[in-house]
């Protein structure tokens, strides 16, 4: 972005902030008004990306500390700093370390090849294999990393397919889509999930690792299957059989075994939280403890762990906290007359809003902006919060919607229309599935 535009958006956000801070809004107390000002500033900065997203997060925390904290019943600015090291941040940090360990020792590709070896030669099965493995990996590592790995694995195969065969496009396209969908399934799959978990925790609803998977995994699986069918229909493979070769499996040394065992123990620790009662965030420290004390990862790895993502999330969590404690959420609900709306309309409205927003701005910032707004509704809002988090992963339309899409697009083999036409259908299917789960299945099962 040109410097002129950056200055324009920063000035605009500052002006909006000042304007709302000093505007007398009837029926709104100071804390809520100042929070609204910070919220609008965050909206402008996160949408425009005039300054880096993570720096905007720090600005948000600073403004909340200065302008909102003093007007709260218990004036303590530290409640806006604590989110930066909250349990979900720690959980994510652990996930980053785990992923780094897998990647550094090439175990992600070992895992991918091991599964792909079994899929056979039928195009539909190969497509399913790639989608399944991508989604599986992106449950535990970042969507971007999973996409990059799987496209690297798929590229020789894609290039070997006849240029006129639509399967080429289908295979390339299925990878970012599966990575985006796979991220929905675990708390560490993608930051929006963590934002929802933290918001619910603040509202007194605890969702542990296994519970999140119980809520989100079925929806993810259904979405994956539907996306698979869609890609098979839109990009009907012409070949009957494809053979592809994978790198020969390398022999695992003791370090690789340590990393694998750590992965297994950590995941097991997350899934059995209700028995041992050690919080997920603390279990997440195990990989760091093992990898760094045994010298499997080094300081350089630690320093490049994605702190920008964590800081961005921290700002989002702080904003969410402020919206809740200042009463802004309640004010929005009552003053905008949303109280009287039927819950179904609200649900549909928020999910649509999230899907539209997330296709134009970062998934994390869209969740950080919308989740707090949904917290003001009494009754049944829990499924809405989770629904919004899942919807934030539905960035399927454009190359710039999310880095996995961009990576696939960087191959030069895709056209924007391929991604857009397919992506819009996947997004609509995602909306449908989220609505079905959020309005019917989750409430029926009483899981949130």
């Amino acid at each position: 972005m040109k410097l002129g535009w950056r200055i324009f958006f920063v000035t605009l956000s500052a002006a909006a902030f000042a304007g709302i801070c000093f505007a007398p809004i009837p029926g709104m107390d100071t804390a809520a008004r100042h929070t609204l000002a910070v919220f609008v500033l965050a909206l402008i900065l996160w949408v425009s990306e005039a300054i880096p997203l993570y720096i905007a997060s720090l600005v948000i925390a600073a403004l909340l500390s200065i302008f909102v904290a003093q007007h709260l019943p218990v004036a303590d600015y530290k409640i806006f700093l604590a989110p930066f090291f909250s349990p979900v941040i720690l959980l994510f940090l652990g996930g980053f370390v785990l992923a780094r360990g897998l990647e550094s020792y090439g175990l992600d590709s070992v895992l991918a090849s091991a599964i792909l070896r079994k899929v056979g030669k039928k195009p539909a099965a190969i497509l399913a294999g790639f989608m399944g493995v991508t989604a599986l990996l992106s449950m535990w590592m970042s969507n971007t990393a999973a996409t990059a790995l799987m496209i690297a694995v798929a590229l020789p195969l894609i290039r070997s397919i006849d240029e006129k065969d639509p399967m080429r496009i289908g295979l390339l396209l299925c990878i970012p889509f599966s990575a985006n969908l796979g991220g929905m399934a675990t708390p560490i799959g993608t930051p929006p999930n963590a934002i929802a978990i933290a918001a619910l925790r603040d509202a007194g609803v605890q969702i542990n690792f296994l519970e999140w998977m119980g809520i989100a995994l079925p929806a993810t699986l259904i979405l994956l299957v539907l996306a698979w069918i869609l890609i098979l229909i839109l990009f009907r493979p012409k070949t009957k059989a494809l053979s592809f070769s994978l790198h020969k499996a390398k022999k695992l040394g003791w370090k690789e075994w340590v990393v694998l065992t750590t992965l297994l123990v950590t995941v097991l620790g997350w899934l059995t939280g209700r028995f041992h009662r050690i919080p997920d965030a603390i279990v997440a420290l195990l990989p760091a403890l093992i990898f760094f004390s045994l010298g499997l990862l080094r300081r350089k790895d630690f320093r490049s762990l994605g702190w920008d993502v964590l800081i961005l999330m921290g700002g989002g969590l702080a904003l969410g906290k402020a919206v809740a404690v200042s009463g802004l959420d309640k004010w929005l609900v009552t003053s905008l007359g949303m109280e009287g709306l039927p819950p179904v309309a609200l649900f549909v409205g928020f999910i649509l809003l999230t899907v539209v927003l997330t296709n134009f701005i970062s998934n994390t910032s869209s969740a950080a902006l919308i989740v707090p707004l949904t917290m003001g509704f009494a009754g049944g809002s829990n499924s809405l919060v989770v629904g919004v988090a899942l919807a934030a992963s539905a960035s399927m339309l454009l190359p710039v919607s999310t880095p996995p899409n961009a990576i696939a697009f960087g191959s030069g083999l895709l056209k924007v229309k391929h991604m857009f036409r397919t992506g819009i259908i996947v997004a609509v299917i995602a909306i449908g599935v989220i609505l079905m789960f959020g309005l019917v299945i989750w409430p029926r099962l009483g899981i949130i």
Partner: protein
Amino acid sequence: MSFAVKIETCPQCRSRKTENLVRVEPGCPVRVYVRCSECGAFVARYTLERYTSDKPYESLLKFSRRGGCSIASRSHAQELEGFSKKIETEFKETTEAPFTELKVEEIICELKR
């Protein structure tokens, strides 16, 4: 001056023919030792942040695997999308720029100020 381009010359024999010896070592950044092809003298060492080959897309996939280390912003996505193109144009721009006679240290000082 937004950027400068300098062709490395051998400090001993002033030759412009050099060889790049790429040293890869686990746990360390990749280092490139530049050796004079004429007389074998040490010319310079570069420490790489990232290696990009003549197949930029494959290089992009390699370093994008470093999970979690990149923020999922739109500007980042744009960077990834235009990665190969950018290298192409930057290479062209670099080769077409007038070459400076300054020492590399001097250019670095000048531009970082």
